């Protein structure tokens, strides 16, 4: 469903040229559950932004369902993003002045979905992540793990075919990490949505079906994951 062809992203800082992503050929099929790992600075975030059409490659192509994204106008890219891709970021994921439900609604609002329908779907998505009863809470009233689950609900509310997560568990403790990953894996199994998770955490990677390791902007390895079974202690009713 998403494919890159010798995609490159270079940054120029003064005289120095930084090759953040240095020629990556990658193909991700529908319904995959994969992680991207690698040392800091290896280009994980950059690659994820390229996959999510947030950034344009310096050279090479990103194809989504066969469409070369370089041929699309900025407006078309914005549309494609909000209709097909959901994002979860490491931090600063939610707008502080909106409550959980309003945060989840936001992409639907940009899609001009009717308010009643919007609200219904937002509550549905919150229920999926087990936070239906926290709909009226602002992010500051939620724990880190809960905030991240709200962000996942927001990524899911548009029913995207691809969910891109950049270190979604980076600021969570083990228990919450476990809960978040389990949530994503369950969703992947139930809905067949593709999940691509950038992570530092070997534990997270061990739960995925495919692990891509980056080093200096290149793919160092692309292996099947352990797909370890999760056993989160004290797991709440989901």
């Amino acid at each position, binding site marked *: 469903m998403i494919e890159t062809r010798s995609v490159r992203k270079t940054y120029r800082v003064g005289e120095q040229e930084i090759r953040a992503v240095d020629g990556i050929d990658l193909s991700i099929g529908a319904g995959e559950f994969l992680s991207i790992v690698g040392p800091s600075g290896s280009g994980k975030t950059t690659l994820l*932004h390229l996959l999510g059409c*947030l*950034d344009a490659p310096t050279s090479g192509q990103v194809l989504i369902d066969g469409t070369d994204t370089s041929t699309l106008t*900025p407006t078309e890219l*914005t549309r494609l*993003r909000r209709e097909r891709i959901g*994002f979860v*970021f490491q931090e*600063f994921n939610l707008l502080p002045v909106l409550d959980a439900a309003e945060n989840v609604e936001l992409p639907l609002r*940009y899609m001009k979905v009717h308010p009643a329908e919007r609200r219904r779907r937002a509550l549905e998505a919150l229920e999926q992540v087990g936070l239906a009863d926290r709909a009226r809470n602002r992010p500051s009233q939620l724990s880190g793990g809960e905030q991240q689950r709200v962000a996942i609900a927001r990524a899911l509310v548009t029913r995207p075919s691809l969910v891109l997560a950049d270190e979604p568990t980076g600021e969570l403790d083990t228990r919450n990490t476990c809960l978040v990953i389990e949530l994503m894996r369950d969703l992947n199994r139930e809905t067949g949505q593709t999940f691509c998770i950038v992570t530092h955490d070997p534990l997270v990677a061990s739960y995925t079906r495919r692990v891509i390791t980056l080093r200096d902007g290149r793919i160092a390895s692309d292996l099947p994951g352990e797909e370890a079974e999760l056993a989160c202690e004290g797991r709440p009713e989901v």
Partner: protein
Amino acid sequence: MLKYIVRNMWRRKARTFLTVFGIVVGIFALTVLGGLSARLTQQVNGARSWFTSKISVVPEGSSLFGGGEGYLPLSKVAEIEEVPGVKSAVAGFGLTLTNESSGFGSPELIVGADLTRSSDLLNLVDIGRGRILEEGDRGKVVLGSVLAEKFSAGPGDIVDLRGRAFEVVGVYRPTLSAVDGFAFISYEEALDLFRAANPYFQVEDIAATIDVLPQPGVDMEELAERIRGEVQGVRVISPREAEKQIGQFSLIFNAILLGIAFIALVVGGLSIINTMVMSVSERVREIGLKKAIGAETRSVLSEYLLESSLIGLSGGTVGTALGVVAIVLLNRATASSNVSVFAVTPTVVAGPVLFAVVLGTLAGVFPALRAARLKPVEALRED
């Protein structure tokens, strides 16, 4: 969207309040001065119709609004009437209603007119109730609208002018001009009142002004020129000249108003720009996030424009409201004098509000463009 913007503004209560307060101050000043200017315009327009429908002859060195100390000998009336084209020349003598100054605006005056020839002059203003003064009237008065209200008197009532009782025979319609504060009586009685008040002044056969009306079809400017040529020792103010004197008066005032508006514009505009630039900088990541999850450039742009115009609107509304309250209070405080100092017209209210909204929106353009042009990746990477 609106709810969200308001919450964002609320998040920075102190800053929003200070910015809005800056606008409030500017708009308040603008409103109060606007009220003053509106009232002045009304007066000027009123004065215009009164002063520009006749030729005023005043002592040399005097102007339309008084100034000179001298008086005109009554003999000038006959001299003026000799000039071809003059229909009537009416000697007038004015004195203030009381000895105290009446503060701002045109004073309340007792105006004596030579009733033997004043019917045209007194008909320049529409009579509302009763009748105008006629030849031979003694102990009768016709009141301007403001004075009638002040005495709460109508035709048939008795009013006291400087200790003497007069019967009201008529009340003029409001003209929003000096005339509203006039009490018209006969020339002879006006002179009597003056002598009673100034026993050491033995005046006889004098006039303060002579109002000249032309015969039908005679050009007033040409007539004024002729009078100037034939009558010595007087100042002749033609309608055009009166217009100029009046115009100059309001010109100066409107220049001041424009200056205040400009200051409000610069100070208010800069403070909104400053606040909005800060808002955008502290919400860079937020903007990046929104764009990442599908906000179009247009919606980010309109969001920030709306926020800044909302600052303008709230500052404008509060400032104008305070201004109107101040106007009402000031008018009440000066209610004892015959004219109100300020007027509240639709322009006085809507103008400053509109001004503030336009100001807010314009000031928001630059910061909003900055926000809208942020690239999502760069915005997300910012810390």
